[in-house]
């Protein structure tokens, strides 16, 4: 990083602050007086997809330490954000150096629709992010669920159990054969007749008759065991908690969501508009990966697959002309049966649910995965509005359990207000409303969320 080294940073900041404080008596500058809380919102909405809060380069230089670096005027900073090309035209040497350094790789920054006051807020946040300490090595701060999962397999025990059982069977059969031969040998030595060879089945039957009580108890146990195991496995049919199929690209959610704090809906942008949350199209990946060519974990290998799909040459930084695009065939993770209609926007835009309510702590995922319900429930500390559920994720029981618990505020939207008014107006509706309000809340179920044709048609 190129620094203008004229002293320790606190000293410099002090001087700048003093200087700016002096200037700001005339006009409020961008370097101070901003509201860091507002700034955080603005930053996340407008800047975070390309700029990091520290000094790391994402799809643009990180904004950490911008106050120290920025050697051009404040007016130029504002202009640079609002209209980068115009600012570049001013011929300022610092801006020129920025253009030379970053534009060839990342392209021009899009003009941002933010006011000067907004910029002051953002700068306040950038200079002093509340409650955030600079993470030096982000890798350790973002563990993945898969790391945590490792070594929790119990399949080896089953295999040992089966091997032991087979050994026992072999020993039992040979023992009985040995016994039979010895018996015969004894009889022969005593001059008696050889016993007619009897089949294993008859032997077992004879043995079972002899030990009736023991066999009955064991039999009872086996029947009970089969019933219980059968019931459990039948209940697991169609339950895909923890399902994490192989994907064509090692897309790690933890790197994007946890380390780089990309908002869910930046990529899954139709979640608030459509029934599908949408797997991002490759051009959305390219918004960042035009610049980020080297992945932290997989190097160029996985990111190279994006370039291969869209036809981008990372060395020249240009798209290849007349390239035959190769769409990426992801494996679908959240499979609902064909007869289920599910609409993301209903839940995200209307219901106001957090993504985590159904998808869990995606920030800890590697590739896409169905979060088990217990794992989701455990997030309650971070998301107080989370609805606690008991049925396995993505089963119908889970859906309708939530529809029974989720409340609807009848006063917040013109749509529900109209429904509420109708209920209040009619005697019949009044009765219904009183029923609804027996527990002081109107749930999704009470408004018809348990009716078949809400999801099946």
């Amino acid at each position, binding site marked *: 990083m190129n620094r203008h080294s004229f002293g320790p940073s606190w000293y410099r900041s002090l001087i700048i602050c003093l200087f700016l404080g002096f200037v700001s008596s005339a006009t409020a500058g961008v370097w101070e007086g901003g509201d860091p809380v507002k700034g955080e919102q603005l930053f996340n909405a407008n800047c975070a997809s390309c700029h990091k809060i520290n000094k790391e380069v994402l799809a643009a230089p990180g904004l950490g330490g911008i106050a120290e670096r920025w050697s051009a005027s404040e007016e130029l900073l504002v202009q640079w954000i609002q209209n980068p090309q115009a600012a570049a035209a001013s011929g300022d040497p610092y801006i020129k150096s920025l253009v030379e350094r970053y534009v060839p790789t990342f392209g021009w920054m899009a003009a941002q629709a933010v006011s000067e006051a907004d910029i002051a807020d953002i700068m306040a946040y950038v200079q002093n992010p509340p409650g955030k300490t600079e993470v030096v090595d982000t890798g350790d701060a973002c563990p993945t669920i898969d790391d945590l999962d490792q070594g929790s397999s119990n399949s080896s025990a089953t295999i040992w159990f089966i091997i032991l059982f087979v050994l026992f069977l072999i020993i039992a059969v040979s023992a009985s054969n040995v016994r039979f031969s010895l018996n015969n040998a004894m009889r022969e030595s005593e001059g008696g007749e050889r016993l007619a060879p009897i089949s294993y089945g008859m032997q077992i039957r004879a043995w079972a008759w002899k030990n009736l009580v023991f066999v009955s108890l064991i039999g009872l146990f086996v029947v009970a065991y089969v019933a219980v195991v059968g019931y459990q496995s039948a209940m697991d049919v169609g339950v895909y908690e923890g399902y994490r199929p192989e994907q064509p690209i090692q897309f790690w959610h933890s790197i994007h969501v946890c380390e780089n704090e990309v908002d869910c809906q930046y990529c899954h942008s139709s979640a608030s508009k459509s029934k599908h949350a949408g797997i991002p199209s490759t051009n959305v990946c390219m918004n960042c990966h035009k610049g980020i060519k080297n992945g932290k974990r997989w190097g160029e290998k996985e990111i190279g697959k994006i370039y291969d799909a869209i036809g981008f040459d990372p060395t020249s930084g240009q798209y290849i002309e007349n390239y035959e695009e190769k769409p990426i065939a992801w494996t679908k993770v959240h499979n609902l049966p064909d007869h289920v209609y599910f609409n993301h926007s209903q839940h995200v835009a209307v219901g106001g649910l957090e993504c985590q309510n159904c998808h869990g702590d995606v920030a800890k995922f590697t590739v896409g995965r169905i979060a088990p319900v217990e794992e989701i429930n455990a997030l309650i500390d971070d998301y107080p509005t989370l609805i606690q559920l008991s049925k396995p994720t993505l089963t119908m029981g889970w859906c309708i359990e939530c529809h029974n618990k989720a409340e609807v505020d009848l006063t917040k939207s013109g*749509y529900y207000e109209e429904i509420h008014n109708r209920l209040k107006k009619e005697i019949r509706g009044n009765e219904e409303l009183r029923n609804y309000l027996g527990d002081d809340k109107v749930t999704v179920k009470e408004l018809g969320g348990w009716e078949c044709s809400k999801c099946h048609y």
Partner: protein
Amino acid sequence: MAENKRYWSGLDELNKTEAYKEALAVEFQGQQSVDEFLGDERLKETNTGRRDFLKFMGFSITAATLAACETPVVKSIPYVNKPEEITPGIANYYASTYFDGQDFGSVLVKTREGRPIFIKGNKEYGFGGGVLNARINSSVLGLYDSARIQSPMIGKSASDWNTVDEKIMAALSAAKRVAIVSGSVISPSTTRAINEFKARYNADHVQYEAISYQGMRDANQNAFGKAAIPMYHFDKAKVIVSIAADFLSTWLTGNVFAADYAKGRRPEGAWMSKHFQFESAMSVTGTNADARYMISPSQEGKLAAAILDRLNGGNAGVEGVEEGALVKAVAALKANKGNALVVAGSNDVNVQMIVNAINMSLDSYGNTIDIKNPLRAFAGDDRAFAKLVNDMKSGAVDAVIFYGTNPVYSYHNAPDLRDAMSKVATKVSFNLVADETASLCDFCCPDNHYLESWNDLSMVEGRVDLVQPAITPLFNTRQAQTSLLKWCGNAADYYTYLRQTHNAGYTADMMNTDQSWNAAVHNGCMMKAVAEAPAEMEAEVSAPALDVAGAIAAVTAIKGGSFELATYLKAGIGNGSQAANPWLQELPDPVTKVTWDNYVTMAQSDMESMNLNTYLAQRDHASLVKVTANGMEVILPAYPQPGQKPGTVGIALGYGRGAGNENIGRAAFQTKENGEHIVGEDGLFVPIGKNVFPMTTVQNGTPVYANFSVEVVAAEGTYPLACTQMHHTYMGRDSVVKETSYSAFKAEADKPKGKASWNMAHGLAVHEDVNGDGVINAQDKKPISDFDLWHEHPVEGVGHRWGMTIDLSSCIGCGSCITACHIENNVPVVGKDEVLRHRDMHWMRIDRFYSSDYSLERGEEEGLGAIDTYGRMEHPSANPQTVHMPMMCQHCNHAPCETVCPVLATTHSNEGLNQMTYNRCIGTRYCANNCPYKVRRFNWFNYMGYDKFKNFNPSQDSLSRMVLNPDVTVRARGVMEKCSMCVQRIQTGKLDAKKAGTPVADGAVVSACSEACPTHAITFGDLNDNKSNVRGISQNNRAYHALEEVGVQPNIYYMAKVRNTEDQEA
């Protein structure tokens, strides 16, 4: 009404045949009972023992269980570069225009993820209010037709555009005479391109249409010096006399006329039109007439002459037409001078001349007829085409290009045309499929489907409707205009060319910046100032009566034979251009209710005299008759058609497509029980029906679609007709239809709902003295609403209550709603064999009832003997009145189906829907048995996988499967299905409102049927919304519930039909 009138769906029901009674008793036809099954001797020959059976069963259960456990791996493939306007899961709509020479409609194309899946009317900006018909809304399937030619062809082998262009240009340059044969060209840009081509190659341009209207154009040429088709305004006509013009269905722009006609049919309005229809076969228009009279095709001109004579004070009559009919019609016309309209379907210039004279003396021009701004379509020129055929035969033509027309199929003298084509060195076709004409051509240069094309269409002066592509071309096809331009050395693509037509200074950088163009593309049309009509035109229109003496003499001289043939066009198949569209083939004909077939409609009396079977049921196959005309004979089944003039037969045109096994689409051919195509003796697939274009005659150089002398004799054998009229009967309950006359309606128009004599609320007699007259008798009735078997379902005030009203006065029975429903809801196509077994899957049907006001009971009351009574009953059935009644799930608030379902697969929602949950259904079919309306359909097969349906079910073709609506489940075998009131649309509408934070606006949610209805007979909405249209209509005094006495409290209301039958009311 049921009390004094008898309704029947067909002659079987009228005469209570055995087959009809059987149909009443059995809900599911063609089923064996358990006793029958076990009693079957053949069963003993099988050698599957009980143990084997158990083994098989155990094995299959295990296999099925294991298969169900497997996690399906589904791939999800996002765009690489997502187009900005597409959000997966959200539909986009694009305004476009449909025009195929026969139909014209402004459409909105619904696309999902870039695939067009539904066509609806462009109501806001469209021509004539953007009304469509069944043929237009089914046209979306043509896009995904795997029979389309997928690349340019030389002969039968695929080629590429460069080679084809080179060869064609070489041939054209060498040719001395070139001709383009096209359908009506109403596009300014296409005209420009054709003119450019004509100039380059000194070519002729001949317009040819399968259905010609040249007789009318000639007549207008004679009368006004303008060979034009005027625009008719049925909404302004208080009296309509139609002489065999099926103007509500297939005559000119029938869809627009239907919408206009319905405006004048509202009894609540200031006036109600009176409609007289004179025709031989029962047409859709005829079924809607207030007064319908039967005439032969040869009498059309004579009738027109008689009307003209009587308007001028004469008293001419027509043999066989009752005097009263003429007197009434003429009196009504005279009384409404200036508001009257007479139309004739004949293509004989003489008939049209006389009709022009009639309209002139009635002051119709300028009032109900607009000749100043005529319709530009329907411009087929038969004489020019006949001349071209002659020139081709003589070898004078070296190259001919066919564009959007198929004369080898529809020309009345096809052998002559084939012969002529064989003498032309270079034949080029732009047709989309290798049809009868294209398969004879040397080069096929397939045009884009209209959903892949740009075009501008100017049907009338003052507006240009735009065709815009809704998808990029699926195949290696090229728009015909681009080909034409290319061949005359203009490398411009047609889009640029089209833009330049409307803005000479257009350049590519203006593509997106011209706001007026963007608005026009958005709206689907450009409006321009109408040029003033020339002054001399005014003078001619108001000129005194035309000299039509010659015409009268000519039509009077026409002699009819012992049998006359009147051909007609069906609402589904039309002129046959969409014969391979299974949706249209399976659409029951509005009048005969026959699917998948062509037949001869005959009068019952004629059939009896020939000893033909007059009943149609699954086991009573239709008799075959042989019709001979123009030296050609066809053998077709005979259909007993009430209302058919004795001595005439009717056969639909548009059938017998692909007789030479041209690859026009698999659904155009007959299939066997196992779904394989039937192969005829000649080794070719057997087409559906017979082509009777060659049976028509030519009068004064124009084909009249009739033959005045044909021979009809009984033929050997029978033939099964898949007719739905006996399916789903009401078990003898007649109280579904309510109707009244206009005068009776007017007399009690102000009475509240349930009080007028023509729409009395139903009451049930109870054993208590309700009316307080001291006696307990049948007069002591309590309203139906007092009786309840179940706890009342919350209805009022609880959220939404979706409902529909259906106005029987407006419904013309056209069937647009059926195809719209079919397409929207992924309803399976089942094919003829399954329809024969009463297993059609249409979620909605249109019950067509015939009625007379005579019944056995009335005969008894009047003390008539049995013979006299039957005699009277026979009379009306020869020319009955007709009611069309759309019938679908009534979404009863007290639904009988819900209580009998053992697994709660059908339940009631608090939004008033009777919801059907397919994944719960185990197929007991109790619900269908218990439904009083017979609207539930059972999935007998896996229609998207079973071989029986492979040749016609769109979901079995990987290409046409694209048309399925992704928001609606494709139902599996073994489950019930029925109308869901388009619940997917309701859910979407509600979600949009929730996202916007506003109440659901009235009209924001419409069902597919309501959207498709050209006459606005069906209104959909929220009955709990006090301001909604549907709520208002449901409280109208004409509103009633079908089968009200059953007390199931439906959410669908019907409006009693009002007929303007009184003579004085005209």
